[in-house]
């Protein structure tokens, strides 16, 4: 049954009348018109629909909308702060770490979780952290390069030149 659901979305408080059992993905895409979060498998198998809930990557296609009540949800639209790209977004551009771009929002938000858990993640640890996110175009090597650059930027280190 529809209920009032309040949470923080990309830094702003929002309230929507929705059935809390609906999946967050569709509430975001349809009711809140934030289409940067993409559908791809609907079963939590590919990571394309990843959003941050209280700064932790979650698969919105599997997440009850009601479960984010009172929490902070960040989608790719909210990752850019005051017109300033996040170092991960900048690194994806610098490295051409995408082709069709459909998996990109999920890749960036998942990578954010990887680096938040382990700011000094090695390439192998980044691979492990990204392993459950799928890309069909084969941008994988450049995505790994980009995440390494963002890791170094976030740590205040000079970054290696893009390939």
């Amino acid at each position, binding site marked *: 049954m529809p209920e009032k659901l309040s949470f923080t979305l990309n830094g702003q408080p929002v309230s929507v009348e929705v059935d809390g059992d*609906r*999946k967050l993905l*569709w509430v975001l*895409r*349809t*009711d809140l*018109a*934030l*289409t*940067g*979060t*993409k*559908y*791809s*498998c*609907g*079963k939590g*198998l*590919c990571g*394309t629909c990843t959003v941050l809930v209280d700064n932790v990557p979650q698969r919105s296609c599997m997440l009850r909308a009601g479960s984010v009540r009172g929490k902070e949800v960040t*989608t*790719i*639209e909210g*990752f*850019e702060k005051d017109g300033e*790209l996040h170092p991960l*977004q900048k690194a*994806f*551009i*610098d490295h*051409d770490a*995408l*082709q*069709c*771009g*459909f*998996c*990109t*929002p999920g890749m*960036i938000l998942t990578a954010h979780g990887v680096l938040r858990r382990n700011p000094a993640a090695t390439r192998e640890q*980044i*691979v*492990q952290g*990204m*392993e459950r*996110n*799928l*890309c*069909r*175009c*084969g*941008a*994988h*090597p*450049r*995505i*790994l390069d980009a995440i390494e650059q963002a890791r170094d930027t976030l740590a205040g280190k000079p970054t290696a030149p893009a*390939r």
Partner: protein
Amino acid sequence: MNDYEKLSLEILRSTPAGAAMLADRPASPERRRFLQMLSGGLLIGVTLNTSLLRADAEEAATVGPRRPRNELPKDFNAFLHIAEDGKITGYTGKIEMGQGINTSLAQMLAEELDAPYDTVRMVAGDTDLCPWDAGTWGSMTTRFFGPPFRAAAAEAKAVLVLLAAEALGVPADQLITRDGAVLVRGDESRRVAYGALTKGQRIERHLEVKPTLKDVAAFKIVGKPQLRRDARDKVTGRAHYTGDVRLPGMLYAKVLRPPVHGAKLTSADTTRAKAAAGVRVIEQDGLVAVLHATPDGAEEALALVKAQWELPPASTLTEDTIHDHLDATIKDAKVVDSGGDLAAGRAATKRVIETTFLDGYVAHVCMETHAALAQIEGDKLTVWASTQNPFGVRDMLARTVGFPPEKVRVITPFVGGGFGGKTSNGQCAEAARLARAAGVPVQVMRSREEEFFLDTFRPAAKIKIASGIDDAGAMTFWDYEVIAAGERGSAQFYSVPHHRTVARPSGWTGPAGSHPFATGAWRAPANNTNTFARESQIDIMAAAAGMDPIEFRLKNMTDARMLRTLRAAADAWGWKPAPAPSRRGLGVACGADAGTYVAAIAEVEVDKATGAVKVKRVLVAQDMGVVINPQGTLIQLEGCVMMGLGYALSEEMHFKGGEILDTNFNRYAIPRFSQVPKIEGVLLDHNDLPPQGGGEPAIILMGGLIANAIHDATGARLLRMPMTPARVKAALPRA
């Protein structure tokens, strides 16, 4: 009116936008913008300065026979527009699905116009705004759209020079072009910007003698690496795909699908769905769909429909039995190539090697599933579509839904991957039919399960090869038959006196009763399967001759381009010759696709306990003629390597007759981050060859390359793709 003007008018009438202009109908904002572009242009008499120009004999061949529709327009205005502020828009009927054409075409346009790269943007895949195009496939954008696109820019620039000559009162041969302006040579303070010449209008003047295209040596923008132009939109979520388009009052549809291919709907009880809040049910000529204001609402309502199906007879066809079935049911054979006397060549050969290779069904698995949004306003149908061929969709909708082509507009937003799978556009017809029935805009976006079920799979295939070598390791004959994959890439390029190549059939679809579900084009169609078989057989012969696999290829090859490409790969790798199996885990393969030659070397590690194959390093040498965007080319090459790992090692559709068993990523395994090898691309310098294809060539090598490397590592010869751990383990020689 001269012939050229008559033809221009004819072409104008034949396009929806042109017809709209001539009919002076009320216009949408987009159409108004286009009308402004087309109409009220500069009608200035012209005397050709022929010293500036040279006839382009290729022009007629490029644009083909004169037909009113479905050909490239001849008026360069169809390809570009220069606004008064100097901003330049290029128009292409191709679509952007990740391959980077919005970047490479902008480079071509800026280069040929002598305009700053940053002032150029591209509009792609809108049938009302863009010049007709057959479809984005076959690595054809650069090869076949590039030349007429550049020619349009070259003509526009030459006309701008003529206009500037009049504006400045200076003879045209004393003018130069640079940075979007025409300047007086020797007095560059006297200049006029392109935008000031066009004032944003259509350019009415044309040249009967077309200017030549710029020489490669003069390139300043083409040939320089450029980052993708769409990256910022794609990393911020601003990039819109078809499923992201929102219209007031739109509904989301879910379409009833059969449980297996070949099932017939006998009844559908929609009572419960109709009773659900906010649900509309459409039943029309076998199409049963539920509509709701949310996609998940539609999905839930579909589950309320109780359908009865008449199932097809039980089938014994599976991924293991399909190959013999295809061999028995596909009769239509084409001799692709032949030479010498095959029977005599075989009779004279002592060492005959006969091998049968198998390949399975492979899915496209674009991350974006097929989607369409249809809107009907009055007598006009507009469809936003994730498609590789918007003009094909327009014509298909005209035929199947009953709108005249000029009343159908197809708009292609960013496409989330295609790989050949989005040449099948059933979702567009569904959305259009449902929008008409419902009277509101309707979106159809497939679930992942529908995406697998409705895919046009790369066909399973069987290849039979008999070939021979003499005592000196020279190939004596080659008898090749490919069943079900298709002919592309089947013709061998080795130097062998007696040979025949047969494709049964020549395409990638089979007759009724052959494939249990739809098959179609999959990135470098047929060539992946053919190159796997050919390059494996070559390696088998090299090993039988006791020769290093690269030396064997070089010995049996006279094609200078292939020799150079293979040598480039060997040199870049630092190849040290040794007969296989050398236990180093090194493989080699070469081939050609879309006019481009490729050769690759790979290193693999095989876990003998599990049969798992880890590809550690892949080097690809690529001769593609002139390179437009070296950065984009390398990205495509890397993508080919990554995607190729999938069909080589893990991707295979499991099925039972028309029942598709793998319908999501838990069962169908595409490549992941842990599989990323070190990838190196070597682009050969070949500037006297026009640009060739880049999106597909490298992927053709991955099957044969890995099969040969597994053999070199272990002595096991894999004859069937994908080379799963179980198949590798089963092929390992007994210890």
